[in-house]
């Protein structure tokens, strides 16, 4: 058997794959956070809770309405997006004039509400959600055999991330969005409905979290606490990558997933803290983040 630094190549590959899967979720979530932050200047603390709700949404669609995985992949993000729009219209909207930290606090309160509610309803143990038949079973890549579904997760999240990047950086709609991020007042003066864009942006960011939740449902346990640990790692990812660029969020999400996977192979005790250690190092060397711009 081939070994690298005393680790069998197979184990290395499989941890790398797992790291990429985790990284896909980091990328999707930090992308949503970055999009929201760009427009609203708010860090959405409820992102983890909304991701959890995405997973529960998929589970409920299946158990109550018999809507399968691929249906949920479309319906759940829409439902979550609508919830996001409601949150923006009725709550966040009132905080644009005060310190942006209040936005963080408000969404923190929302995270408590959502998580507490789901916990009182479903307990902490969680529900299982089966992998859809079409994506079940292993696939042979030549150098390793992995479950089809994991490959699908990596593929889908890459597609969604790149699509989002393309829309924001290369299309007319995206240029409006970037303009509104740069200077909302001037953009409004040019006749673009900025409040509407803000609302849709928040909705879109939340929908991304919902999508990530649906994708996570078959891999992780669908539980009320699934977002609570994840969100803080994603925060660290965001600090490492910096909020400056969309690409930065995607690359650092995937990259940190891989680093975490590798740590699991070479030095397991550090695997849960490695992201935070990297964050500390980045703060020392480059406080604005790897892709961030110093203001």
């Amino acid at each position, binding site marked *: 058997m081939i070994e690298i630094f005393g680790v069998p190549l197979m184990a290395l590959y499989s941890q790398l794959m797992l790291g990429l899967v985790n990284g896909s979720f980091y990328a999707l979530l930090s992308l949503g956070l970055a999009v929201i932050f760009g427009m609203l200047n708010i860090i959405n603390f409820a992102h983890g809770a909304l991701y959890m709700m995405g997973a529960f949404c998929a589970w409920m669609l299946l158990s109550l309405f018999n809507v399968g995985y691929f249906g949920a992949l479309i319906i759940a993000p829409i439902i979550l997006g609508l919830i996001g729009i409601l949150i923006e219209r009725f709550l966040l909207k009132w905080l644009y004039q005060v310190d*942006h930290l209040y936005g963080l606090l408000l969404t923190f*309160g929302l995270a408590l509400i959502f998580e507490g*509610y789901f916990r009182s309803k479903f307990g902490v143990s969680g529900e299982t959600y089966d992998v859809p038949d079409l994506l079940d079973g292993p696939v042979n890549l030549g150098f390793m055999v992995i479950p089809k579904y994991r490959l699908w997760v990596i593929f889908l999240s890459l597609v969604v991330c790149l699509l989002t990047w393309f829309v924001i950086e290369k299309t007319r709609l995206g240029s409006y969005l970037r303009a509104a991020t740069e200077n909302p007042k001037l953009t409004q003066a040019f006749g673009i409905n900025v409040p509407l864009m803000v609302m849709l942006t928040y909705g879109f960011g939340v929908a991304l979290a919902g999508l990530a939740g649906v994708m996570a449902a078959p891999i992780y346990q669908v539980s009320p606490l699934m977002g609570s640990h994840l969100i803080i790692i994603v925060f660290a990812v965001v*600090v490492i990558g910096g909020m400056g660029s969309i690409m930065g969020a995607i690359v650092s999400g995937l990259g940190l997933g891989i680093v975490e996977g590798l740590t699991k192979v070479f030095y397991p005790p550090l695997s849960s*803290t490695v992201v935070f250690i990297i964050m500390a190092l980045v703060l020392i060397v480059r406080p604005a983040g790897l892709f961030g711009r110093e203001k």
Partner: protein
Amino acid sequence: MRIAIYLILLIIGAVLPHFVYPVLLMKILCFAIFACAFNLLLGFSGLLSFGHAAFFGGAAYVSGYLIKNLELPTEVAIIGGVLSAALMGWLVGILAIRRQGIYFAMVTLALAQMVYFICLEAPITGGEDGMQGIPRGSFLGLSLKDDLTLYYVIFTGFILAFLIIYRTIHSPFGQVLKAIRENESRAISLGYDVPKYKLLAFVISAAFAGFAGILKMLVFNFATLTDVHWHMSGDVVLMTIFGGIGTILGPVVGSSIIITLEDQLTDSAGDMVTVIMGVIFVVCVLIFRKGIVGESVALYQRMLGRKNLPQVK
């Protein structure tokens, strides 16, 4: 007027344990110290730390270890715990003050989560179960086994902490902190070494947060993961906002009400307590940003018709 309020509170604090369950009161006092320490940072320096649970719970673990595993006297354990919290505060602070605003909050949160994982996985902390059965020992010759004795020790600790924090806020150092809060660029241009001031404020705040955590550990004889979880960091933010950011008594009022509420609701509402806390959070942020003390003072001033008074001290 102010002195009268403090005197009345002092008397209430001294008499109350004879009427109300002392353990609940001690819990309130511990969280009051915690919230006051936090308020020094948020209210008077404008820094929102979302990681104060790390100092609160971390110091509790350290003190617990000193008492239980090394069998040191309680006094030494308290000092050791506070010093460890100050050291942690220095380490976290030195990283966090490199960023501002929202980033500051995220960095402190992430670093605190690291402390959480360390507490979860380190061999001496008891993992998921936490560190159980830490004896209270004695303090300056007084046995702390009796709840009432411990109450008065903690009450004294609270008054000390309150006075030191009060003194800090009203010192020239505190004035510089306020200047930084109001306009950081101007403070820099006036020649103040802003990072140094921020860091010192952070260390002081962390040390008192640790002090609070240690006292709570003594009350309940254990240190658990709940104490270092980010929910705890959120709780102290809520108490401070609810009572009134940047007011002297706000954190005390906020923690008293929130802890009493939690205590009353735990039996009847179960997991819904989190939901209720969340709702209070949202309502506070949306329409009640000055908090109870802040709004009361504002109301009082309106009644006197003195609208143009400077900001509430």
